[in-house]
């Protein structure tokens, strides 16, 4: 029965849900990137503009009022600090700060919109578990998956997918880290009631500084896989 469930649930992917034009797009005045991130068209030649923010991709804003602009993390930025939580192997609730995770280390942080959702469970997370060995062989110290779910749910998800220590599953329960990096995804008005979650992304961080950022629009799964990260390293 579980197999049937896995197969039929593939027909209802989060990606379908998330192809909404109401996604907040990141706008950044600073073009601090050597490699074009997926946000910016590779042919964009940036000239400094006065306070008007320029967005290189056509964006669709909701027609109700002025869009809120949030500063989204970019390559070259230092990650803000925040606290994430998880249950350790003795079932104790622990917290870890983003700076502990990333200072003096090479880390990969990737985020999913929701534990137990199809794309996240069947592709994104398993991809990183599979490639963990290869990524670590390239010098990556820590691989962590972040989601706006509580630590109990993350623990159950980890067990469900039989994940060991290759990838840490960390809870951004209140969404604080996700908001601090401007990657929130508002799914509150979806019938499904997911609230505010994280956009899907994968980032490579060296000593707290983002070196590579593969950020999706919403929950799409185009640039943020383990393979994409491996190619970039």
């Amino acid at each position, binding site marked *: 029965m*579980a197999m*049937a*469930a896995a197969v*039929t*649930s593939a027909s*209802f992917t989060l990606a379908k849900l998330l192809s909404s034009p109401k996604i907040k797009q990141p706008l950044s005045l600073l073009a601090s990137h050597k490699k074009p991130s997926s946000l910016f068209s590779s042919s964009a030649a940036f000239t400094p503009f006065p306070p008007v923010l320029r967005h290189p991709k056509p964006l669709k804003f909701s027609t109700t009022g002025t869009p809120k602009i949030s500063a989204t993390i970019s390559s070259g930025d230092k990650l803000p600090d925040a606290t994430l*939580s998880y249950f350790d192997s003795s079932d104790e609730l622990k917290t870890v700060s983003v700076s502990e995770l990333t200072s003096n280390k090479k880390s990969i942080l990737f985020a999913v919109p*929701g*534990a*137990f*959702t199809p794309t996240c469970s069947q592709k994104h997370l398993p991809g990183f578990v599979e490639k963990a060995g290869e990524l670590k062989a390239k010098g990556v110290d820590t691989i962590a998956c972040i989601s706006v*779910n*509580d*630590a*109990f*749910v993350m*623990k*159950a*998800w980890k067990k*469900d997918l039989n994940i060991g220590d290759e990838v840490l599953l960390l*809870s951004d*329960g*209140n969404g604080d880290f996700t908001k601090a990096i401007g990657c929130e995804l508002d799914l*509150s008005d979806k*019938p*499904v*009631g*997911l*609230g505010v979650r994280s956009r899907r992304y994968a980032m490579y961080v060296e000593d707290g500084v983002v070196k590579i950022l593969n950020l999706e629009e919403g929950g799409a799964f185009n640039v943020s896989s383990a393979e994409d990260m491996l190619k970039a390293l």
Partner: protein
Amino acid sequence: MAPIAVGDSIPDGTLAYFDENDQLQSVSIHSLAAGKKVILFAVPGAFTPTCSMKHVPGFIEKADELKSKGVDEILCISVNDPFVMKAWAKTYPDNKHVKFLADGSASYTKALGLELDLSDKGLGTRSRRFALLVEDLKVKVANIEAGGEFTVSSAEDILKAL
């Protein structure tokens, strides 16, 4: 909202769940409860210890007894999304009658006046633990905990009241 109490009519609201064919469905509480005797019980969180090891199993175990006393539906609500509720329900393969419903944005919980702020535990807004016996939309029994403790809201407590 003031917390729901005995004598009140339960508000309507929409909750979500995955059906046997794994299709996402939404259902109105009134459509499930109008003209029927239902138990509505809530937990602060799927996969959390008390909820998982005591509260839910209690209702699953007593489901047949409750049904023999005229209960038509036993509904478990939590402020979790339906993907999580589906995964949690799967951990109870012997469950025959309890329906797991997702109040993902806590809107129904708030309509009942039973929300619980667990942000400082990284859980956001959740539901207080409670068990209601509702007959044709009217609350007959309201066993509501102050937070997440487990003292009055078990299946046994509702059984005694039937």
